[in-house]
C-alpha cells in the first residue's frame, strides 16, 4: 500500500502481532482511519509458535493458523498492512510525526505494538549516544568529513549506508554481524569499489571513550576511531520515541495503555510480562479505545 503523505491518519499502529492487529480492528470498527505498519505476514513470533493452547475459542491452534486468521480478519475489514519500517516517532504536540525512510507522515495518535525483539545495548552505548555513538549514518555522516568511523551492521541492507559514509569519511571499518544465512552469502570482497572501507568479521562487546576518541572493544581486539555507528534492525522504544518514559526495558503505561506522551499508547509485549498472545490482543483493544477517546477529545477542543 502506498502511504498518503499528505493526510493525517487518526491512528498509526506500529507492529503486526496480536496487539497491533487487535488495535487496528478496534480502531477501524470505531470508524477511525488506521495506518497499520509492520511485517505483512504478521509478526514472526505468532507465525512461528508451535501451538497456542489458551486463546479462547481456538483450542490448540498453531501459530501459523492464528497468523492466517489474523490476516484474514484484517482483509475482511479492508485494513491493509503497510510493510515499512518506522525509524523514529516525534511527539510534535498536537500530532505525531513518523519517519519512514526519508519521508514523514502525520498521525493524531500512535499505538506502539512492536514487541520486545530489541537486544540489550552494549556497555557504554547509552552513555555515549550522540557523543560518538550514532544510530543513523545518513543523519550524522556529514560530521565525519575527514574522520574515521566504525559501522556495526546487523543486516546486508546497511551496506548502502556504509558506502554513503565512506564517501564522506576518510576511513570506515565495517563489522557485519549478520544472521548466519546472510553471513554465509556475503562475498569475500564486500566493497570492491571503496578502498577506504575495511571489513572485519568479529563480535563487538563494549564501547568506551578515550580522550576525544571512541573505542570499540570486540573479540578481535580494540578499535580506536572517531565515531561508532550501530545500525540495528530494531531499536528500543525509548530510542524510537524520544521522550518516552520507560519502566526497565518496557514502556510505562497505565490501565488505559496511555504512556507519558499524550496521544501515544502502547500494547502487547512491549508493556511488560506476561508475554501472552491473548494479553497482547486485549491490550491492543484497550489502546485503540483509548486512542479513539483521545481523538474525540481533540475534536471537542477545537
Amino acid at each position, binding site marked *: 500500500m502506498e502511504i498518503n503523505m499528505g493526510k493525517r491518519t487518526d491512528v498509526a499502529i506500529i507492529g503486526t502481532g496480536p496487539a497491533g492487529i487487535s488495535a487496528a480492528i478496534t480502531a477501524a470498527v470505531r470508524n477511525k482511519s488506521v495506518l497499520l505498519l509492520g511485517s505483512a505476514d504478521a509478526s514472526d513470533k505468532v507465525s512461528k509458535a508451535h501451538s497456542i493452547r489458551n486463546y479462547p475459542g481456538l483450542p490448540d491452534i498453531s501459530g501459523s493458523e492464528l497468523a492466517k486468521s489474523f490476516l484474514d480478519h484484517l482483509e475482511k475489514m479492508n485494513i491493509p498492512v503497510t510493510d515499512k519500517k518506522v525509524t*523514529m516517532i516525534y511527539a*510534535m504536540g498536537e500530532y505525531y*510525526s513518523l519517519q519512514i525512510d526519508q519521508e514523514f507522515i502525520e498521525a493524531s495518535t500512535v499505538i506502539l505494538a512492536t514487541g520486545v525483539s530489541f537486544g540489550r545495548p552494549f556497555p557504554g552505548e547509552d552513555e555515549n549516544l*550522540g557523543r*560518538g555513538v550514532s544510530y543513523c549514518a545518513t*543523519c*550524522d555522516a556529514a560530521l565525519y568529513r575527514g574522520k574515521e568511523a566504525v559501522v556495526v551492521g546487523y543486516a546486508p541492507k546497511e551496506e548502502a549506508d556504509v558506502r554513503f559514509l565512506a564517501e564522506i569519511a576518510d576511513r570506515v571499518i565495517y563489522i557485519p554481524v549478520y544472521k548466519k544465512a546472510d553471513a554465509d552469502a556475503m562475498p569475500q570482497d564486500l566493497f570492491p569499489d571503496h578502498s577506504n572501507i575495511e571489513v572485519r568479521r568479529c563480535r563487538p562487546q563494549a564501547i568506551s571513550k578515550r580522550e576525544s576518541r571512541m573505542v570499540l572493544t570486540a573479540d578481535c581486539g580494540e578499535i580506536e576511531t572517531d*565515531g561508532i555507528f550501530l545500525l540495528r534492525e530494531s531499536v528500543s522504544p525509548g530510542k524510537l520515541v524520544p521522550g518516552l518514559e520507560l519502566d526497565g526495558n518496557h514502556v510505562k503505561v497505565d490501565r488505559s495503555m496511555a504512556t507519558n506522551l499524550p496521544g501515544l499508547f502502547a500494547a502487547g509485549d512491549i508493556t511488560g510480562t506476561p508475554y501472552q498472545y491473548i494479553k497482547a490482543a486485549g491490550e491492543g483493544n484497550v489502546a485503540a479505545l483509548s486512542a479513539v477517546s483521545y481523538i474525540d477529545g481533540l475534536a471537542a477542543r477545537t
Partner: protein
Amino acid sequence: MSVKKINSPEFQSAIAGGVSVVDFNATWCGPCRMLGPVLEELSEEMAGKASFYAMDVDDNPDIAASFGINSIPYVAVFKDGQKVDEQIGFVPKPQLQAFVERNL
C-alpha cells in the same frame, strides 16, 4: 521573537550577552526538521527570557567542530558567551522547555 539563522561571523556577538539557545542542524537531518518547529514555538513563548538561534553545520563546520559536535540536532545553551548545557537529539516540547528553563 523567532529562531534567527546565523553563521560563523555572527556567532560570538549573538551569544555574548544573556541566555542564548543555539540549534545546530542541517537540511538533510530528519530529527532536525522535526525539532525546528518546536524551537520556533518555544522562541515565541520564551521571548524576553532567551534568544534562539539556528546554525547549519554544513555551512559552519568550524563552529560545529569547536564544540565537538558529532551528532545533530545539537542544542546548546549559552550564558553570557559560555556554554552551560547541551541537548542532543530530538526531544518533545515539554522536555525541551524544561531543558532551557533550568538554564535560565
